[in-house]
């Protein structure tokens, strides 16, 4: 793995490599915060959650019908039509792919990110269209009168809790909630803190981050 990562960097363009040089690599980051956790498995074995299972879980948890949850070009199912093979599926009748890929393809994380972004964008859009049936982006972001200058902490906490509960089916730790809350400032990005658009972006991207996390992808 080390070698592949290392050599994979040879393909990075000048522009991106320059950007990347200012941002620590994921592996380094993970290593940096890794601590000798008492829960570390001595024989860590995880399985990749193939695309169909992944989408069915999200469909059930985010309350979007499976056949509507992710459409490429507004008409091709993300799993069945677009990314079935790179997301670990099989398709024997036409593509003759009888076995899932043995390890994630170079395009697998990109496809997974794309699917997660589709799903979360879709969910927040539906929440805005029918607030009374909202799942993630619920009312009260800026207080009961919707006039607060910044997001209501209780609302943020509740939203973070809902995202983790919906996507990963568990309650987040306090640290995880704080991570999402602090992420709001990054999403704000110079815009007014009490902008509904900022709040919607925060919910969408928080959902994306959780839905494409390692915990969501593997089991």
């Amino acid at each position: 793995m080390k070698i592949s990562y290392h050599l994979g960097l040879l393909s990075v363009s000048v522009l991106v490599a320059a950007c990347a040089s200012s941002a620590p690599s994921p592996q380094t980051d993970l290593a940096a915060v890794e601590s000798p956790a008492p829960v570390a498995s001595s024989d860590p074995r995880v399985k990749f959650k193939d695309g169909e299972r992944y989408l069915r879980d999200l469909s059930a948890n985010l309350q979007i019908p499976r056949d509507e949850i992710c459409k490429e070009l507004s008409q091709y199912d993300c799993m069945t039509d677009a990314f079935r093979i790179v997301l670990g599926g099989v398709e024997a009748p036409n593509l003759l792919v009888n076995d899932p890929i043995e390890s994630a393809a170079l395009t697998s994380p990109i496809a997974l990110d794309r699917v997660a972004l589709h799903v979360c964008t879709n969910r927040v859009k539906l929440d805005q269209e029918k607030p009374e049936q909202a799942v993630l982006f619920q009312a009260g972001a800026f207080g009961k009168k919707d006039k607060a200058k910044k997001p209501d902490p209780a609302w943020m906490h509740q939203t973070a809790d809902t995202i983790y509960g919906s996507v990963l089916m568990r309650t987040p730790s306090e640290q995880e909630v704080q991570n999402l809350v602090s992420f709001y400032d990054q999403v704000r990005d110079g815009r007014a803190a009490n902008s509904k658009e900022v709040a919607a972006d925060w919910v969408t991207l928080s959902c994306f981050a959780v839905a494409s996390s390692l915990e969501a992808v593997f089991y």
Partner: protein
Amino acid sequence: MTSLWSRRSFLRNASLGAAGAAVAAQASQGAYADEAAIERARNPRFLIVLSSFGGANQVDAFLSRRESEIPNAATLNAYPDSLVQNIGEFRAIDLKSPTIGAIPASFTANQSNFVRKHSNDMMVITHTGTSVNHFVAQQRSINGNAAWLGRTLQEATALTYGAGYPIPNVHLVNGTGFTERGTDETMPAYVYGERAPTPNLWPLSLDGYKGVVGAPSRGLFEKARAFRNEQLDPSSAFYRTFSGSQRVKHWTSIRGDALRGVEAEDLITKLMLFPDSEAMPLTAHGLKGSEIGQKVREAFPNYEFDPLEAQAALAFMLLRYGVSVTVTLGPDGSAVFKKGVKLGEGGLGEGDIVNPPISFDFSHQANREVQALMWNRQLMIADRLITLLKSEEFRDGQSFWDRSMIYFATEFGRTRRRPNNAMTFGSGHELNNGSLIVSPFANGGHVLGGVDPDTMLTYGFDPETGRPEPGRHMTEPEVYSGIAHALNIDTSGSALPDMRAMRRSA
């Protein structure tokens, strides 16, 4: 890992610009191996495996024989003298038939045009395999029967030249032994084949953001990715528990800079073969087709309904844009009909069957017709690929074709016997055969080996001189070695034989 830049890195970026491959080396500077990898990537050789599912038989093509040349011609697969053409050292069969065995579908097939046009780069080698099981024999055609640590030719090519390429080894055809992963697990992850099963939608998997309508801005999306990678995941109990998993390590490695490298090349646009249309509403989703899409679609006008033409079109784009150093394509087991053909309405017209079911293996029903039809199809694809590759400059006046090889990999030959003087007959699987290789690096213009007139089985050649050697049979490792060495792949320590005769130059 260092993010320093070296002079060589920039030189390399500049030199690969012609290929459209922006490459930035962040390799550990001063490491000889890295420098060597960079140098090889600057001067790649491209391997195109045009797989020929079902047994592409040489004695039905470039090694065909006239009835007048074969003592037992009535019961062996020798052709009427009038059908066999001599073009240099090669033979060619042009055949027009009213049927494909029992299928009432007429067709016209031609081999001679390709031979006349490309004979200088054509090399036919004889060999005898070790399996008549489709899948096993397909695997052995690309790994030489585990000739070199179980590495496939595609993996060896990607290992040698692919370090600077976003996706060095792409498999456009799937479900065959020609694209089966090799057994050497010690190589970098990028070496192994990446499946691209659907040429129209696969490019969408090359960018995590573009085309997702209604999503927050790209900048915010990238922040969310960084937030996930740097804060959210590391703080989770899941990560602390399973961070030692190889799968988790692999995932976190490829979703980092390697991922951004693929996206930075804007491959979602460059490789988008299909134009904006009702079926592919690109513009409405903030996407657009490739700049060279029109040119490629003109070369492969049936890309919409013929999977092989779509594969070939994408294969060219992968090479042209410096994405890959090896691509594997080919027909699978599916029948392909001309667009608009309606079955069950009174017979098929001329050329309505583009690809018979099970491809070359339909020779079980009608050997000569199927071999003619399928060879015609494969040669047409190869000719168009070569033409496109010749039309694009790689660097310094060299075309992409000047650096390419097409290997018509096939699993075995077909049995040589036929009912007395039959024109239409079925054939079985036969270990003995040969392969067509087309490349400026191959010993072009030559047939290496020959055909025994008593059996119509092929015999081998001297590995050094290429002189025919009746009684000798070339092995799978020898074929593998000859191809690898023609591609200038360093096989030191492998004990593979030197097959000097298969190379144009030493």
